């Protein structure tokens, strides 16, 4: 950043224009989160390595940290590169990418690899791609682009149109099956539709429909039923979340200190889904809450900037991307704290994993790109008199 800090206001170069128009506080918060995430993975890596080692393959204790450093470097580069795109170019690429990701998602049942009874990944050389991770931010942009049309012409049938797209994606996800991601996408879409003026009656109707869908999944999928039963009655397979709670209890307010945790070694997925529990044990409840607050502050910063936004597409896309980011973080932390049924959802920018890390970087890069503007011009009608 040293060079960037010397950029003058009058400098019209590419980097200078980026630097002066990008949402720098947001960028700073995201970098802080990425740093925090690396520390968390460093703490979780030995536990996961031990768990996944066997006689044939010995995983070095810091293997996952080393991998995560690579993903973080790639992710940071991706995020910065995307954030440097012009808003229109970013949107164009995102829409094209959304179509590609849809195709990839549709192809998963045919060319995907099966893990634990679900087919979600496409094996690429040296890397497993989970199309839904890439699709999530791109689908948000696609929906925002469609829904934004209502702001200028409410008569356009964009809500049914994007709802149809949503149904297509949800249908593809149900084939894998991946109900968690489907639920997340539906929730994000519903929130965006609400912002785009969907009548509140329909918003609540949509929530009801979601509950019906959940009930349907409960009845038809033994996997879903097991997870929900385990959460509601504390019976069945609660081993994972019980070990997570042990971590928080062992950590107390101030934690055992980095490297001193013992409960983390009993965690099944210390480096991915349950990394929040590792933070809870080694750094304590206060640090864990600080991480939750960091997510909140990021959302707060994005929303407060969007309130001043005059462009419906930017508002919808920004809100959708932020919601997807925040909701995923909230769900993951809730599962760790036994407040929600066990669900394969990663903690954005913290959990180990390439697909989700790069997808999050893509989403945040797009968010940074869309919210680029001259920070000295206030658009909000709340802050200045409305033109006659």
């Amino acid at each position, binding site marked *: 950043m040293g060079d960037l800090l010397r950029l003058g206001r009058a400098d019209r170069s590419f980097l200078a224009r980026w630097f002066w128009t990008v949402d720098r506080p947001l960028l700073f918060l995201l970098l802080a989160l990425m740093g925090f995430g690396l520390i968390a993975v460093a703490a979780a890596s030995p536990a996961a390595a*031990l768990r996944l080692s066997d006689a044939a393959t010995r995983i070095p204790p810091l293997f996952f940290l080393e991998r995560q450093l690579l993903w973080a470097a790639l992710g940071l580069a991706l995020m910065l590169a995307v954030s440097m795109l012009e808003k229109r170019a970013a949107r*164009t*690429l995102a*829409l094209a990418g959304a179509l590609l990701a849809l195709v990839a998602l549709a192809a998963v049942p045919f060319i995907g690899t099966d893990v634990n009874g679900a087919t979600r990944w496409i094996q690429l050389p040296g890397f497993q791609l989970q199309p839904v991770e890439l699709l999530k931010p791109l689908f948000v942009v696609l929906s925002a682009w469609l829904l934004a049309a209502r702001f200028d*012409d409410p008569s356009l049938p964009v809500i049914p149109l994007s709802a149809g797209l949503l149904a297509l994606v949800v249908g593809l996800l149900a084939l894998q099956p991946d109900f968690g991601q489907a639920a997340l996408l539906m929730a994000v879409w519903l929130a965006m539709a*609400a912002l785009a003026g969907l009548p509140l009656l329909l918003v609540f109707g949509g929530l009801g429909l979601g509950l019906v869908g959940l009930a349907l999944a409960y009845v038809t999928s033994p996997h879903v039923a097991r997870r929900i039963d385990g959460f509601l009655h504390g019976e069945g397979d609660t081993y994972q979340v019980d070990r997570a709670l042990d971590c928080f209890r062992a950590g107390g307010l101030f934690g055992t200190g980095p490297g001193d945790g013992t409960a983390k070694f009993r965690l099944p997925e210390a480096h991915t889904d349950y990394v929040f529990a590792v933070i809870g044990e080694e750094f304590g409840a206060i640090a864990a809450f600080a991480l*939750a607050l960091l997510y909140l502050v990021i959302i707060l910063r994005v929303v407060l900037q969007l309130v001043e936004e005059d462009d*419906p597409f930017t508002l919808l896309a920004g809100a959708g991307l932020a919601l997807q980011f925040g909701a995923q973080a*909230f769900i993951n932390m809730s599962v760790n704290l036994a407040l929600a049924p066990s669900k394969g959802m990663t903690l954005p920018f913290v959990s180990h994993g390439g697909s989700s890390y790069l997808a999050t970087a893509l989403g945040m890069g797009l968010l940074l790109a869309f919210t680029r503007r001259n920070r000295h011009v206030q658009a909000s009608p709340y802050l200045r008199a409305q033109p006659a």
Partner: protein
Amino acid sequence: MPPAWPATLAEARPGSRAPSVRLPGARQAALGVARQRLVIGLLAFCALILLLGARLVELAVAAPPAARAHAAAAPARADIIDRNGVVLATSYRAMALGVRPHDVIGDREALALAIHAILPRRPLEAIRAALHHDAPFTFIARRVMPDEAEALRALGQPALVLEREPERLYPHGALAAHLLGFTGIDGEGAMGVERAFEERLTDPRRSSEPLVLSIDARVQQVLESELARQKERQSAEAAAGVVMDAETGEVLALASLPAFDANAPGGLAGLPSHMNRITLGVYELGSTLKPLTVAMGMEAGTIRSLAETYPTSGLRVGRHSIRDLHPKGRPLTVPEVLIFSSNVGTAKMAEALGAERQRMFLRRLGLLDPVPIEILEKGRTLHPSEASWGLASLLTIGFGHGIAVTPLHLASAYATLVNGGVHHPATILRRPAGRAVPGERVFSEEVSAAARAMLRVAVTEGTGRRADAPGYRVGGKTGTAEKPRPGGGYDRGRNITTFAGAFPMDAPRYVVVVMLDDPRGDPEAGGGRTAGATIAPAFRNVVLRIAPVLGVRPDPAREPDLSMIAGLYQERRR
């Protein structure tokens, strides 16, 4: 630069020139709605994050420090103490040695030898197997002591893991093992009090409050050591004994040999050493039941006077013949029937009593039902069904055959016989001072007083002479019964010998029942295999050692009131 897409679909609509149809007011109104809803959503997200914070604080602060340190560990288990506060079972945090086999640095064989040198009780083969085990983690040994743990740490092997885990410790080893029971590998009660009081012992609200037993560790220790000595001298297969408070029904000691160390129970519960012979084993206890038959006859009025005489000539019932072991060849008075342990005499008494009343008394003495004690290892008594309780059953049960009960049953019945006639169900929990288990009267005070006098002379004049502990006014009765053969019938060469008695007989406080299974005779003591020769000496030794502990003063000058049987028996020449 990619081609610029229309900013919105509205712009892209053919024929529409966006600015011409755009209504800034409508757009601003829609944006206003969006902003409003956006802020509402933000507030909702704030609330959710605060909820997470509350949950974090709840988990971090609400858990007690102990639970925090070992959240995954088994719940603490309350201590078990004896009536005087001696700890019989306690929980502590032991160390367990584990290994991460994939992390072993250096030579595994050398490491196995080094560990074996520190933990010699762990087989070398098991250690070696653990070091080569294909898993991220496995245990090598549980219950590692602190000095051993220190030595293991000093090995400097990073793959070795010392974990603390809750362990149950029985500080007295095998003392009262059958009564206390033990805990399994996962800390759950597997026998005795540990099993029967599992819920009470693991109740987190009461984990700091010990469970108080009626056991007296000092009495228990004496009982076990004297039984062990006698078992060895007599080359017996097994031995058992129980000491009971005659007034309250509290069990002061309960021993069964062979025993096991509750700290290392080993094996399965089916081993001979895991058999609780006092509550689970049922035996035909022979002549020890005769005093009960006498008391039943007196209570029912079928023995009108203690001076009544009974013939000793042989008696035939169907294909059984009843004879006395040492026929006197003359009619015997009631005390003499007990002194000489006459089968024929007690059979005649039972005949006069009748099956109906015999069953009623046996039921009220608790001899027909499993013994009402708290632990779960309880034997079902064996007796004829009501329909088949014919004359033969009536007569044989009169002298203690044809019915099998546990030694604890017998102790409970003897307590009733000598304490004034009230039957208190047995308990292993300490009763508040002066508050007996609520009882039920079976015999009158007069019958009990007569029984005390006759039990006393059965010792001084009869077969129980070797049970007499000088000064402690011991009363009691021997019992010698042939062991049933597995295939049916009886084994003439193998006996169950029993002595059941109480002391001090002028005001009985304690009932003691001791038993040997198949004593082979002690050549130095004449080689006899009857109860008088094999088990009565153990009774005397037990009384001599526990009476001072229990506060009973020896007094050679005192004797129970023998006036009611005076002149009814011939005193032995001394």
